[in-house]
C-alpha cells in the first residue's frame, strides 16, 4: 500500500530486485565464460608466466590459476611457487 502511495506521489521507489539480478548475472557469467573457453584460459596462463618468468624462477608445473568468488566480486587467484629471484629483470636462467 505504501508503495502505491509512493508511486502515486511520484517518489523514488525503493531499490527493487533488478539490482540483485544484474549482480548475480554478472558474477555467474564470469564463471560461465571462463569455463567454456579453456583455450583462452590456457593462453592467459601462458601470458602470465611469460611475464613472471622475467623476474622470478617459478615451478611451472605447480602453477595453479583460477577464478574464485569472494563475496561480491570475482578474483583471479594464482598460486605460483617461487624457486628464486633473478638478479636483474630479464636475466637468463643460467
Amino acid at each position, binding site marked *: 500500500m505504501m508503495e502505491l502511495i509512493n508511486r502515486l506521489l*511520484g517518489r523514488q521507489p525503493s531499490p*527493487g*530486485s533488478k539490482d540483485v539480478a*544484474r549482480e548475480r*548475472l554478472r558474477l555467474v*557469467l564470469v564463471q560461465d565464460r571462463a569455463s567454456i573457453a579453456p583455450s583462452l584460459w590456457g593462453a592467459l596462463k601462458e601470458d602470465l608466466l611469460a611475464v613472471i618468468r622475467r623476474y622470478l624462477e617459478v615451478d611451472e608445473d605447480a602453477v595453479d590459476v583460477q577464478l574464485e568468488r569472494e563475496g561480491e566480486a570475482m578474483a583471479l587467484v594464482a598460486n605460483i611457487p617461487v624457486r628464486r629471484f633473478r638478479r636483474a629483470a630479464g636475466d637468463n636462467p643460467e
Partner: protein
Amino acid sequence: MGEVIVITSGKGGVGKTTTSANLGAALAAQGRSVVLVDADIGLRNLDVVMGLENRIVYDLVDVVEGYARVRQALIRDKRFENLCLLPAAQTKDKTAVSPDQMRALCHELREEFDFVLVDSPAGIEQGFRNAIAGAEQALVVATPEVSSVRDADRIIGLLEAERMPPPRLIINRMRASMVRRGDMMDISDIIDILAIELIGVVPEDEAIVVSTNRGEPAALLPSSRAGAAYRDIARRLRGESVPIAASAAQEGSLFGRLRRLLGAR
C-alpha cells in the same frame, strides 16, 4: 539472393516461435517474400502459431530425405501469398537432419525468397546446430530474467565459435511497470551484460496470447503493442533505421499514463 536468419535463444519458452511467426508476417505485410522454416523437429509449433496446421502434407524431413520436393512441402499462408511455411516433422527427432542438409535446404530457399527465417529449437545440441547451419545471421531472443539472459550469453558464445557475425538481440516480454518499480532488468542492464546490438524490444502484451489462440500473428493487429514492436523489427531487418523508442520501457502502465497526465515525474 535472400537472407537466411536464424531465430534462437538457448532457453525455451522465451518466444522464439512467436517471434518467428510475427517477423515473418510483418515482413510479408511489408511486401517481402518470406519463408518460415520450423527447425524444431519433433516439437513442431510454428504451424499452429501461424494457423496453418490443417494444411500440412509434407514436412522438412520429407524434403531432406527426398520424399518430397521443397515446392510440394511449402505451405502458403492464408493472408499473404508471399509468405510460406516449411513445417517441422512431428514424428521424427533432431537426428533426422544433418547440418549439411540444412545448409543445402537454406541455400535452395534463399534463391526464391527475400527472407528465410529459421525457428531454432531450444537447447544447444544438434537441433540448434542444424538450425544455425544454413544461416548467415542470427537473432537472439531473451526475456529480462536471469536464466534467459544467461542462456543468451551462452548462445552468443556458441555463435561466435561458429564464426557467425555478431547476433542481434530481441528483448521480449518487457514489463514497463516492473522496470519502473526496479523489479525487472531494463534495456541497458541487459545490453551491458550481453554486449551485443539490440534490434528491438517487445513489450509483454496479452494480445500475443489471444492472437496465438486464433492462429493470427499479432504483427497484423494495428492495436497490439507487441505487434507494433515486431513491425519495427521487421523494418530494421530490411535495413531501415527505425529508432528504438526509449519509451519502450516506460509506456503502457496505468500509473505511467496517469503520472504523465498529471505532469509528475
